[in-house]
């Protein structure tokens, strides 16, 4: 009996709470708020908050055209794998300070899991065989490389700081980080962590491919880049993955740097976390979206590998010398 119960709870975790349903709603709301705020900043009225939901369900009803030159199986399977991996990442991230799936993955696994949704889009685009997709995926790959260095430095510095405090000198597992923060205050307050937090906030728009860094999906230049040949349900799933990614990355930031403010009750924590994520998106994604122009791909790369990496490196060096 216990097995059945625990597997039901396990299934509940996956499909309902921090899993698919919660991500769907949270992701859609955050993207809706993001679009509304960007519109407001341009003195426009902007779409209703539930606009991403309408977009998603409209796309569900549309016809899915598969180009003759496309490789059908990869073309249709890629979005599903991308979305599944995205939700899996969301499961591994502790809700502020209570880890949901204990002991399955750690920081490095998260770093590599973040690649899968981007890879799903890349292989979807390349399977469609369109030259726009080719250019799009080349830019997407360069964006991934660009965002990798700062993320690596941030994760290493977080691991080192928590490791120092925990005595083992190194701690990658997310649940220990969450436990540490629950015990003695969120990491954001430590001196060595502030540059890492700033770097992480600068990386989020790049990682999710939002406006100033969306050379990969530039609808004006290369007709939506990798998604040029997608229509109907697969396109809807890609848009959903993009929405959930915004939520997941901000949730990751909250889990890594603001762990201390958890109250212990999981549902309440989830609301607090969602609120913080909305605030972070407004400041670091919408404001940046409304204010900047799209960067060329090599400017994006140079920006990430020099400016943001330098900030992250400061925190790594500080963490290294035991601050």
């Amino acid at each position, binding site marked *: 009996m216990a097995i059945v119960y625990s597997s039901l709870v396990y299934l509940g975790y996956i499909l309902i709470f921090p899993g698919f349903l919660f991500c769907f709603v949270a992701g859609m709301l955050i993207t809706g708020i993001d679009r509304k705020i960007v519109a*407001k*900043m*341009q*003195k426009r009225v902007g779409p209703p908050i539930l606009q991403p939901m309408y977009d998603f369900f409209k796309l569900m009803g549309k016809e899915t055209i598969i180009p003759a030159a496309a490789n059908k199986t990869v073309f249709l399977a890629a979005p599903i794998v991308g979305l599944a991996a995205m939700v899996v990442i969301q499961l591994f991230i502790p809700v502020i300070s209570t880890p949901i799936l204990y002991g399955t993955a750690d920081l490095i696994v998260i770093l590599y899991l973040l690649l899968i949704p981007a890879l799903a889009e890349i292989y979807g685009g390349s399977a469609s065989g369109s030259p726009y997709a080719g250019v799009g995926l080349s830019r997407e790959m360069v964006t991934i490389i660009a965002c990798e260095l700062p993320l690596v430095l941030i994760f290493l510095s977080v691991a080192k700081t928590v490791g120092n405090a925990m005595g083992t000198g190194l701690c990658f597992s997310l649940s220990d980080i969450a436990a540490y923060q629950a015990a003695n205050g969120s990491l954001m307050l430590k001196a060595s962590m502030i540059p890492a937090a700033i770097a992480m906030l600068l990386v989020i728009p790049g990682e999710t491919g939002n406006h100033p860094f969306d050379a990969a999906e530039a609808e004006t230049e290369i007709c939506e880049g990798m998604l040029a040949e997608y229509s109907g349900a697969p396109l809807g799933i890609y848009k959903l993955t993009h929405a959930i990614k915004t939520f997941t990355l901000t949730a990751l930031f909250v889990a890594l740097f603001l762990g201390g403010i958890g109250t212990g009750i999981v549902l309440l924590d989830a609301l607090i976390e969602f609120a913080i994520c909305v605030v972070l998106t407004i400041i670091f994604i919408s404001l940046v979206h*409304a*204010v*900047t122009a799209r960067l060329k791909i090599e400017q994006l790369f140079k*920006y990430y590998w020099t400016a943001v990496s330098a900030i992250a490196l400061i925190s790594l060096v500080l963490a290294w010398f035991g601050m």
Partner: protein
Amino acid sequence: MDLPFVREAVKNLFSRSSCDMYPLKPSEAAEQYRGRIEYDPTKCINCHFCERVCAGGAISVVEVPVEEGTQITRTFDLSTCTFCNTCADFCNTHAIKLTKDYHMIGLKEGDLLVSGTFVKAAKKKPAPPPAEAKPEEKAAPAIKPRDDGKPVQDPSKCVYCGICAKKCLGEALTVDRKEKLWKLDEDKCVSCGTCEEVCPKKAIIM
């Protein structure tokens, strides 16, 4: 990466949007906006000028002989019209007017056609104009306008400058300054009234 518009963006965030909510609050077009064509068939004298001047060829006329004259239906095809207002300028009887209504959405075939029909009374063959009205007949006390609306010249005022001939679109007038000759060709004349208007000496009466 300097972010020049941050202050402005944040200010906008908390100020009212500059959108004037079109479908909820109707918005009027500007004063002399050239929108949907309004055609008043009663005023129309079927002078065909509007067709000739229309750049886009948007105006088409169907003339059906009916017992008391010809039934003329003139249709303005808004989907070809460039709304340049030339036809309204040329229409002397001001039958065509471009209104301020900009709402011109065509869903079915006929939505964008504005048409009007009127019956033009058949022309009774008037007695031939007194042919003897020679140029040298001077002392006619008051030149009375002819009944069929064609122009009549008042030799006393006329200086034979030839402007009326130049302006006449139908080339119905021939004027010779030396022999002081002013001749009207009845069937070419459509009695549009341009010569009367343009004559500097007001020597033409209709």
